[in-house]
């Protein structure tokens, strides 16, 4: 019954018959999800609380593996391989698929070191290279002007919106292919939210983006494709413009017109 469009563009990720079961749960939290994620586009996942949108997002970089006992089934194709395979190198995967969290997660170090962190993990030690790439990342994250004169300061001195942009800079500094955003503005005020949304839209030139949001308007504003999830299933995936004007599924229609939560 799901209505999933075929996308014309190349795919960054391709989810096929994906299922995910939390440790000890009797039934899977995500059921038979098949979903293409277009390259260099923004795909938003919406749906009521508990529909599984965050669970799906965290499957893309296998964040669930941090907590043992969770199981995957099906396939998520990325760069020609199934990243759910046991042989998948998670460290490599996570540098290719970055993530931004609900709350800003500035590390307890200087602004510079925050952005350089991922690069250092990859073994880059050359000072000039590091500082060039940090500058670039900060510029790309539209925060360079605000922090260029205090790169050595503690990152925790920044405001919430700035910290979130710093986290985005840190994530893009390692040049990932895909960026996952998990309700990136839910802890921010409206002005910072606008800044982040603007940035997300700019970033899609460079990376493919998947964003989970409980704010339907946000999905409408920023995304190219929108997937509506309900009770662990992907009910509908379509071009955002079409989905919000002419949803194909009754459930989607009812969700976006507010007839159910």
């Amino acid at each position, binding site marked *: 019954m799901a209505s999933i469009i075929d996308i014309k563009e190349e795919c960054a990720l391709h989810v096929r018959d994906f299922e995910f079961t939390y440790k000890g749960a009797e039934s899977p939290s995500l059921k038979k999800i098949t979903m293409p994620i277009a390259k260099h586009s923004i795909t938003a996942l919406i749906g009521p609380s508990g529909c599984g949108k965050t669970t799906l997002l965290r499957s893309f970089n296998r*964040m669930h593996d941090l907590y043992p006992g969770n199981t995957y089934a099906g396939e998520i194709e990325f760069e020609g391989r199934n990243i759910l395979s046991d042989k998948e190198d998670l460290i*490599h995967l996570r540098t290719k698929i970055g*993530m931004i969290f609900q709350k800003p997660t500035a*590390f307890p170090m200087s602004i510079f070191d925050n952005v350089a*962190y991922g690069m250092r*993990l990859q073994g880059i030690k050359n000072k000039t290279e590091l500082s060039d790439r940090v500058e670039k990342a900060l510029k790309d994250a539209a925060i360079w002007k605000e922090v260029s004169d205090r790169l050595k300061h503690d990152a925790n001195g920044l405001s919430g919106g700035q910290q979130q942009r710093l986290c985005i800079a840190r994530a893009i500094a390692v040049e990932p292919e895909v960026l996952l955003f998990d309700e990136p503005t839910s802890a921010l005020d409206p002005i910072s939210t606008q800044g982040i949304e603007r940035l997300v839209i700019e970033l899609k030139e460079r990376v493919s983006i998947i964003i989970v949001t409980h704010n339907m308007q946000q999905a409408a504003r920023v995304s190219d494709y929108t997937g509506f999830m309900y009770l662990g299933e992907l009910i509908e995936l379509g071009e955002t413009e079409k989905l919000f004007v002419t949803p194909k599924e009754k459930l989607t229609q009812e969700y976006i017109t507010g007839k159910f939560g």
Partner: protein
Amino acid sequence: MIDKIFFNFTRFSALLILIIVAWIFTVLFNHSLEAMSTFGLDFITKDEWAPNLDKFGAHAAILGSIISTMLAMMLAVPIAIGVAIFLSEIAHDKIKGFFGVSVELLAAIPSVIYGMWGLFFFVPIIRDIFGGLGIGLLAAGIVLAIMILPFMAAVTRDAMNTTPDILKESAYALGGTQWDVIKDIIIPYAKAGIIGSLILALGRAIGETMAVTFVMGNVHKVPGSILDPTTSIPVTLANEFSEADSSLYFSSLFGLALTLLIMSFVVIAVAKFYFLRKARRA
């Protein structure tokens, strides 16, 4: 009306703390005046402690306190951090729960019991390995280390556990290994809390009486080696307070108590004002 009465009650109770502390200092100071005026600086630089001669030099006791504490810290700190890492990051949920609770409960066991164990079980081992009495600085240091270990591990783990999950997750999301996350995120995040906790443990070790009373020896002599028996301030107080017979003897013991109080006050104040305050701010 009731509001006012209630307020005054609470305020009086709170002020009582300040009064008691001030009172303690005053009382200890007054009672140690006699010893201080008699011996002056010699009280802390001379190690001759001869009640029958009315000669009291606390050098050995002070040194004993410092050395045994240092020894304990050197032994306990790395292991405590290891335990904390194990408990907060490595162990699986079930083990984590069991070990975690054990460590906390062990921290609650009265020190007199550690002392007893040290005396009956650990001292003989030291005697067998190194010869001599077994009682002495080394035994005291090790027993002290084991005694403060659970406390240290528990508070260090608590400090480490304050690191928010998503902070750790975001380091993993950049491709970090577990150790990367521990050393780059958790330890820096909890740094102030960890150091503060370690120093608090140090403060406890300095003032610890019972665990060391059993295994120190109570010999007023600067030890030649760490195997020698010696004494520390609390040991001296515990052993001799109820036996003191002259007023100078009492005064000297009060002087020791005052010295101990000041030492621990300084250490704890450093821990609190420098590190823990920082931790609370962050």
